[in-house]
């Protein structure tokens, strides 16, 4: 019997969109029974939300004051206890899942399969390596639990009209105190979330300053888009790190991606391979971004972007 346990990511108030994507991935495993684990201080409303995700059989709610903050070191021993009896343990390949899942895998004595992009059968999966320049088919041993992270950009969220059973579970594990949460500096934004936005406008080094980056925000607001950036733009301090798109930033799959003043380095392209339509605006007609763009426009962004924004406004 194939039983998948998914560790839910959340911010204490709502589930992260990665949860329903992990469920989609797990649903591709033939005859899988899917449960979700919600670790929180008080996870009642989060568990109720998880119970709505289509394809879920059970939601396990693990309340503990130590779970007010989701730290890998405190979560891992609890996850390991809960994973007993499951054939698969999945988490998202977000910073939350990347931090936690390998720690749980090591405690379970197995390697982790990172970034599942396709399920072939219960123990064979496809995943990207070398910044997405190669796709490898991997096989996990079938006499051990499969621990994996799911590349969320490869999956659509499962629908939300289920009514799964919810159960509270008490876990009696020795939780370490050597790791303590201090604070979170989160960029507050009314714009659509970069990871789930159906449209994203990104700016690169060519913007030249934080002030100039305003034209990217303006264009994005005109079309209701989220805003991203290249690493060069983040490193130069034009925008904060959570806006970086690419191999070491966010991997996204919007319907429309507009890259402005971005050259198209491999590491950036890794982050947008699954986008529906890619538009590139760059003054250099030789820029590699044009090799993968669906629509390309050569020219000076400082002239084009305001013009485009006006055209789309009317």
């Amino acid at each position: 019997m194939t039983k998948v346990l998914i560790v839910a990511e959340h911010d204490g108030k709502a589930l992260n969109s990665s949860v329903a994507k992990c469920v989609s991935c797990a649903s591709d495993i033939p005859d899988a029974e899917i449960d979700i684990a919600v670790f929180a201080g008080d996870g009642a409303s989060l568990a109720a939300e998880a119970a709505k995700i289509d394809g879920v059989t059970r939601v396990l709610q693990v309340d503990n004051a130590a779970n007010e903050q989701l730290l890998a070191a405190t979560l891992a021993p609890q996850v390991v206890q809960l994973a007993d009896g499951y054939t698969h343990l999945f988490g998202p390949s977000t910073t939350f899942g990347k931090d936690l899942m390998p720690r749980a895998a090591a405690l379970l004595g197995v390697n982790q399969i990172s970034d599942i992009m396709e399920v072939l059968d219960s123990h064979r999966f496809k995943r990207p390596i070398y910044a997405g320049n190669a796709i490898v088919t991997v096989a996990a041993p079938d006499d051990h639990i499969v621990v994996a992270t799911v590349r969320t950009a490869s999956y659509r969220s499962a629908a939300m009209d289920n009514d799964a059973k919810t159960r509270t579970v008490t876990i009696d594990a020795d939780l370490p105190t050597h790791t303590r949460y201090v604070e979170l500096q989160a960029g507050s934004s009314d714009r659509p979330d970069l990871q789930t936005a159906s449209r994203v406008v990104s700016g690169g080094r060519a913007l030249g300053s934080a002030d100039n980056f305003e034209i990217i925000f303006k264009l994005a607001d005109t079309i209701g888009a989220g805003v991203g950036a290249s690493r060069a733009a983040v490193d130069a301090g034009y925008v904060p790190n959570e806006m970086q798109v690419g191999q070491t930033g966010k991997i996204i799959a919007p319907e429309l991606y507009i890259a402005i003043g971005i050259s198209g380095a491999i590491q950036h392209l890794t982050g947008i391979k699954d986008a529906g339509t890619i538009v590139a605006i760059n003054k250099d007609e030789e820029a590699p971004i044009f090799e993968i763009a669906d629509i390309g426009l050569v020219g000076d962004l400082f002239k084009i972007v305001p013009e485009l924004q006006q055209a789309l406004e009317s």
Partner: protein
Amino acid sequence: MEKILVGLKRVVDYNVRVRVRADGSGVETSGVKMSINPFDEIALEEALRIRERGDASEVIVVSMGSSESQQQLRTGLAMGADRAILVETDGEMDSLTGARILLKIIEKEEPDLVLLGKQAIDNDNNQTGQMLAALWGRPQATFASEVVVNGNSLKVKREVDVGLETIEVDLPAVVTTDLRLNEPRYVKLPDIMKAKKKPLDQLSAADLGVEAGVPISNETYEPPEQRKKGIMVDDVAGLVAALKDKGLVK
């Protein structure tokens, strides 16, 4: 703190556009430029800065792999590491085995801090540091963009999806680096000469008595799906028309 241990993996240089072999047996690595994994270079730089500030006295670099990894260790010594350890392994090694080997080295060297990259840019696994911390029963601070040493603990800023998270961890601990932690120094020629005299110990994974992890086997490799060639437009009007055509704007 006394010692800092840094992992240096030999990987295909980040500027190389890797190709999948026609028979799907792997990616072409013969004749391509090899370098220290970029995140590991950042890890070493951070260790050196901590030592130079007087917060540590010794930096040890360790690499697991073929004997060719000596090159990367020599570069690490030239950057300023005090000594190097090469653990020779046969063929491709899984992360859990890697973490078990590092744990053996830790038991011997008793470092106060282990600095690794957040991911090796060949397998993009992003798991060795977390596994090591788990096996060692010690804290992990992954994706670090700032590390502050406060006596027996560290304050680490981590790059997370929503912004920057700060955590405090007791030493000893494992820290994995993100790109913005620092900018690694360049190696100067005299340092390369000096590095030749620094100690480089060689041992084999078998010597350490490490039990190999259950590997995930790699069956076949394929190139990623190529995106279809797009169109070029001449001006903003052309761009808007093309977007309308695809139903992306009204």
